[in-house]
């Protein structure tokens, strides 16, 4: 590994697959550490609740670390060429609609009980529609979002008797 410079190493560790595999490896290690704090896997000749998580945590950590290692190696080879560095930079600058959808869903979940089903769902559905097809012809999209929200209300509240939260009452 020493034949690679520090910036190249940093790029290899911090981009794309290597970064994700690294997060998974950290999660598995975290799980393993929490398991270790739960006590010994065997007590008085009996298996304790930490036995199975210990097995799984150890296996997951080994597999994740191996996966992370091979991803870092692949990245090191890739970042060695200028062309792939450019791709990495371009990818980093790209605006991600997926992230926006994640954020929109998070806001929707947080607002769901506070402002009620109707208003929160209307805004959420409209946002999802606009993420998929842009903001043009927004008036027709508002109408469709209202229809989808209404159908959802009928389906859950009226047909399947689910108590949906409301803004008032």
């Amino acid at each position, binding site marked *: 590994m020493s034949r690679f410079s520090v910036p190249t190493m940093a790029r290899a560790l911090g981009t794309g697959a290597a970064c994700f595999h690294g997060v*998974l490896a950290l999660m*598995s290690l975290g799980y393993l550490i929490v398991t270790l704090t739960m006590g010994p896997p065997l007590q008085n000749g009996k*298996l304790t609740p930490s036995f*199975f998580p210990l097995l799984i945590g150890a296996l997951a950590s080994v597999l994740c670390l191996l996966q992370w290692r091979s991803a870092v190696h692949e990245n090191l080879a890739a970042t060695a060429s200028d062309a792939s560095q450019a791709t990495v930079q371009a990818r980093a600058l790209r605006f991600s609609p997926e992230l926006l959808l994640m954020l929109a*869903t998070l806001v929707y979940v947080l607002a769901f009980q506070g402002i009620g089903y109707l208003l929160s769902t209307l805004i959420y559905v409209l946002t*999802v*529609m606009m993420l998929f097809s842009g903001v043009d012809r927004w008036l027709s999209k508002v109408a469709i979002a209202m229809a989808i*929200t209404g159908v959802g209300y009928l389906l859950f509240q009226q047909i399947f008797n689910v108590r949906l939260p409301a803004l008032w009452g």
Partner: protein
Amino acid sequence: MDFLTQVVASFALLLNPTVLFYVVAGFLIGTVFSAIPGLTATLALALLLPLTYSLDVTTALMACASIYMAGMCGGSITATTINIPGAPSSMMTALEGYPMQQRGEGPLALGHASFASMIGGVFGAVLLVLLAPLIADLSLLVQTTGKCALILFALIVIVIAQRGNVRRAGIAACLGLMLATVGLDAMVPVARFSFGSGDLAAGIDLMPVIIGTFAISELLTQLAENDKALSIREKLKGVAKIRRRDFIPSRSAIRRIGAACYLKSSTIGYLVGTLPGAGGSMGGFLAYVEAVRTSKEPDTFGKGNPQGIAAAESANNAVCGGALVPMLTFGIPGDPITAIVLGVLVINGIQPGPQLMESQAGLIAPMLAALIFSALILIPLTMYLLGPYFIRIVRIRRDVLFGSIAMLAVVGSYVATYSTFQMMMTLIMGVLAFYLRKHGYPVVTLLLGFILGPGLEEYLRRALTLSNGDLTVFVTQPDSLFFLVLTGVFVYFLAIRKPVQLKRRESTG
């Protein structure tokens, strides 16, 4: 009353308009979802899962069966018309269907696909009805160590079935197992990984895992691939109008394909279905390869030979019957759809396993009746009545489709406990599954790990407690030894021998 009689008697339930409505609606939803490239019947089932809370469990299971059957044949629509399989199970259909479409015989190709799906679907379901009670009786012989070895066998086979991706599949399975350990321990009243949260101490519910893994992650994936999907929509616009009379294959064409082809392919599909992780695409592929191998005119394959369509489609629909065997007899789902069906049972407080066929025959029999009904009546009827409109249905606006899916997925996850905690769990699972899929991890192993995890832990701990920690109990007990040997055989053929053969072939050029 024996099981066969119960299944026959269950057809009477279909005379109830409400039940019939849910079965037909389920079939249509399954067909549309499997016809749209990128969407699957699994997604349809995941979205409809919350609604089963309010439905009678028999009706819910019958609707699930019809969605499952529809999911296997709906993919042939876009596979034939635009050479893009709507579902992975129709990959081989595209090889023959699209050349037929190019020479103006697209509707006929769809007719062949529909007829073969009907044969395969009925064959698989009938074989399931006949054999499942026998396998259920055998499964009663499996004791605690055997159950543990069986679950281990299922998990290992599912992981190694993800060829070229085995390590990632293993990690995903481990993640599923890890998620399954959150909450109260099954044997000692101790909360694990709850970090002081009451919600986490109750454990992670199956529903947010299913909806997050299949609906939210699909939504994010589709958004990431929005440009590609728009070009598919453009392609669909260019498809010529389909006339109803062009669908029906002639008797001579069916005779040329031969009864042996339909039956052999259906048997292959059924057997493949019983294996964990294999699925419709594997069944269709093997049956297609067998049809080419035994054909007198192998050169005609790949150029629009209806025999190829018949082999692939009869096999992938027969998979439905086969895949339900391990789920109903051992409580082990082999694919995401059977995992969701299992979820419906669990949600309704029914514990799947060896006793299921005996104690809950009244629930299982109608489901199998719906499976046969879907294959025998709904497949040909839907193709004939709605065939000309399928292309128009599949061209549905993506923003409308995904706006509706988003609403159904997120609100649906609220239904289980009336708490936003489940909605948040759904989002977290969806984001995790999205990034897993993006980096080539098969999320099906995550789901199956989550579902099989509690059973694996319970039987492992019980077996070791009963044997005072003696690990040799797994090789001294005949049932567990059988499954361990079976695991070894599968590992050898799928993970050791095949890759070595492939490497040798590559090196010899």
